[in-house]
């Protein structure tokens, strides 16, 4: 009986399996164009995500970039006072982790700085000593966007160097790249922010 059932199953069981397989193929064929459309739609979405710059570059610097850079710069130093010499550097895993967060913020802060449509400073805000007016900085960046992006890319690259130094827990390398970060920042500032400010006479 069992054998019969098995035999019967084998004989008649193939039909439902074929039907299921054909149904699956048909479904696959009929559904094939749908995922393709969805994929294309996703590509369109990813090509133009709904990004909208809200803060100015100056505010971005104040809120993200400068605290991050200060965090890297302040991590390693040698300070001589009347109380003795302090060699400041991250020593524990937690301290290194804290510095690493600053490197990440600086790296991604530069990506934010490069976003098109972000104004240099809030409209009508007063420039700092020696700085150009906000609309002058906007015009300078618009006139030479590739150079502006190049500077931001340079800072981002230096920040990535800092990240590598942090991951190696190498305070000397982190200190050395700190000056490079400063030079990269300053190159952009003297070009776009205060091009007419007299440089230090050496």
């Amino acid at each position, binding site marked *: 009986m069992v054998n019969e059932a098995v035999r019967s199953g084998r004989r008649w069981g193939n039909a439902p399996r074929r039907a299921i397989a054909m149904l699956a193929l048909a479904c696959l064929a009929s559904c094939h164009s749908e995922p393709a459309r969805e994929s294309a739609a996703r590509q369109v979405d990813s090509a133009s995500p709904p990004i909208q710059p809200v803060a100015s570059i100056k505010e971005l610097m104040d809120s993200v970039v400068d605290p991050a850079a200060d965090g890297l*710069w302040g991590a390693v130093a040698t300070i001589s006072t009347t109380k003795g010499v302090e060699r400041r550097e991250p020593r524990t895993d937690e301290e290194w982790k804290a510095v690493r967060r600053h490197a990440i913020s600086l790296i991604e802060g530069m990506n934010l700085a490069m976003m098109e449509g972000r104004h240099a400073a809030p409209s009508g805000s007063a420039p700092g000593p020696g700085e150009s007016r906000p609309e002058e900085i906007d015009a300078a960046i618009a006139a030479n966007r590739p150079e502006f992006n190049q500077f931001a890319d340079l800072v981002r690259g230096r920040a990535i160097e800092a990240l590598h130094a942090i991951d190696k827990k190498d305070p000397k390398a982190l200190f050395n790249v700190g000056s490079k970060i400063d030079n990269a920042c300053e190159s952009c500032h003297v070009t776009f922010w205060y091009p007419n400010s007299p440089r230090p006479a050496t």
Partner: protein
Amino acid sequence: MRPILRRQLMLAGVLALATPAAAHHSFAMFDQTKLVQLKDVVVDRFEWSNPHSFVVAKDGATVYTLECSSPNLMIHQGWKYNTLQAGDRIAVSFYPLRNGKPGGMLKMVTLPNGKDISAW
């Protein structure tokens, strides 16, 4: 005190920065048409740090905070982390702050051994 806070207090108290990045500023705050010279001051603090090093020097009761370049550039002038130590007697020349506060951009130091060294 946290390092960053200490640094910010130092910068805020002396330089009153208002720039794209607080640690960065134009050079307009320094009067580069005037050069102040102090022949005998005592180093109270030497900070070998980024983005700028600082020398804090006492002349009697007056405390001057003097900003230098970044360490990587200063190395080319012969500076090291221990070029100055608290208590050293030195001579300095600097471009003063326009706001009249005791401080400025350090131009030249005469070290205790008589050697002149540029800070920029």
